[in-house]
């Protein structure tokens, strides 16, 4: 996303130690914004959404989204946020005030995904007139994670409500490049993959889809998850043929509860850590739309140049509703 306009855009992080601190720091600016015709979006846990809404009510221009359903994976959360923002702007709001409490789970993977979300959201929101306050309960966030999350925000909001530029801010591309350099998945080193015949032509992609669907069905993968994976691998394979260099090779691992796939073409690939997190500018179906869809369909998407070529690694839960 280009066209960052710092004067219009504020993305800040607040670590609070109590609900009172949350209200003290976040509410005044929201209240001021509402008085001036701004729209408000709340995406915290239900309890905090209610606290914040009560503190500024009555206010007709508040949209609430439940954190429990807003944050299944970073890319889908960014898209949900984009839709909320554009909906508020279409409704006539001149500026949007967001208070969000991202939550992707409290394990290491969940916090890592949270960081990726913050970086991608930073890139998304930079194109909109927003003040986004990302709130985290300091009693829950591990100390080792606090610094990383802070780096994704250009500003820091103190519990007393004072905003300050963040000297440790890392731009989204740099943040994501660092956050996704994770190396091989353990299953790649310990498990034997299912190998599929290399694809060299667009005319072979439908056969690949059919073979993949058959393998997933034979392994009892939930139908909806299998369909998502087939659609995602289709897009990556087509990208490899169209923009990379054939042959395109697919490998699949199905350890308990997960699906891991690598799609490797013989080309040199590209280096854009933000690729697929944001819908393409201008034409939403323009270049980049395929990878955007892939990120909507799979939990994790990593891209890297490997000895075998340019590899896109997809991983996702194989448990329905996970």
């Amino acid at each position, binding site marked *: 996303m280009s066209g960052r306009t710092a004067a219009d855009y504020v993305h800040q992080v607040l670590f609070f130690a109590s609900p009172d601190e949350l209200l003290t720091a976040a509410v005044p600016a929201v209240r001021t914004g509402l008085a001036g015709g701004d729209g408000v979006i709340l995406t915290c846990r239900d309890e905090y959404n209610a606290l914040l809404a009560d503190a500024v009510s009555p206010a007709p221009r508040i949209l609430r989204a439940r954190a429990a359903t807003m944050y299944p994976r970073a890319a889908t959360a960014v898209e949900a946020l984009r839709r909320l923002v554009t909906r508020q702007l279409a409704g006539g709001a001149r500026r949007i005030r967001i208070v969000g409490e991202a939550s992707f789970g409290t394990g290491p993977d969940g916090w890592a995904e949270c960081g990726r979300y913050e970086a991608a959201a930073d890139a998304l929101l930079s194109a909109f007139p927003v003040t986004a306050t990302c709130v985290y309960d300091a009693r829950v966030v591990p100390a080792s994670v606090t610094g990383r999350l802070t780096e994704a925000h250009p500003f820091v909001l103190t519990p007393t409500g004072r905003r300050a530029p963040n000297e440790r801010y890392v731009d989204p591309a740099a943040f994501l490049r660092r956050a996704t350099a994770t190396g091989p998945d353990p299953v790649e080193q310990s498990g034997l993959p299912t190998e599929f015949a290399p694809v060299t032509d*667009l*005319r072979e*992609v*439908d056969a690949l*889809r059919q073979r993949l669907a058959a393998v997933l069905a034979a392994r009892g993968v939930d*139908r*909806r998850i299998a*369909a998502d994976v087939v*659609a995602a691998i*289709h*897009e990556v394979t*087509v990208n490899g043929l*169209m923009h990379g260099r054939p042959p395109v090779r697919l490998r699949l691992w199905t350890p308990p509860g997960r699906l891991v796939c690598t799609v490797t073409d013989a080309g040199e690939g590209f280096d854009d850590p933000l690729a697929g997190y944001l819908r393409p500018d201008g034409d*939403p*179906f323009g270049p980049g*739309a*395929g990878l955007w*869809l892939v990120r*909507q*369909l799979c939990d994790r998407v990593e891209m890297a140049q490997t000895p075998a070529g340019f590899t896109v690694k997809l991983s996702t839960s194989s448990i329905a509703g996970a």
Partner: protein
Amino acid sequence: MNWAVTHGIVLLVGHDGLQSYGPEWDGHLLLLHGSEAERLSSLTAWIRRGLDRGDKVICAEGPRPAGGSVLDLVDGHGADLAAAAVASGQLAALPSDRFYPQGDQEAVVEQALAEGFPSVRLAADATAAFGTQPWPAHLDIERTIDRLCRTGPVSAVCQYAHPKIEPTMLRELIEVHRYRLCNAALSVAADPRGLTVSGEIDRRNAEVFATAVDSAVTGGERVLRLDLSGLEFMDVAACRQLLYATDDFRRLGGHVVLASPQWMVSWTLRLLGVDQFTGIELAGVSEP
């Protein structure tokens, strides 16, 4: 299940209403194939169906190496069906240069009917004839075949190598094949309300699909209904082409109804926000 759906054939139609010569009529089909294997695969089923029905089946092909004719591959059941049909005169090969000269098509049909067959089935490899005459003359022949299919007991499948067809030519071919267009993965059928789409649409055939849709929305109707109940897969390229092909139509107030999509197709359409575009309606969505 009809032949088109079984073998992943696509179709197209004009807006002047469909005509058919009875319930078993298979129409005037445009088969766009990406390879010789694809062509033969589609044709053998179509020919077998004609033999089963008692049609006279005439295959017009260009020169091919020994064993490379569709006649050599018709029989997939173990019995020597093709040889028997050739021996009885029901199945015949005809060099392209004897089928494609202007006016010869009517004579071919008349002769077959005069032999006592109730109906005639023509399989014409148009690619072979394609460069031997000016494009307008070639289109005239296609119009003649179309008229024969509409006015007599005749079905025809005209085969074109897809990579050799320019976009403007594709549009003209679609318009002259007013009943069906066939492709290896996709099947579109027509009814008075719009098109019925079956099979799969992806990067490979999305432009063909778009041309069919574009042709359908220029007929003056205000609503185009696409029955997607038989569509099993649609990728980003297909969604893009759907939107591009209907852009002007929708901008002028036209309405596109995407009816009864299977859940995976509807999931893709919704995820990509196709249903959020002005003039697009998603109707009759099923759940997994």
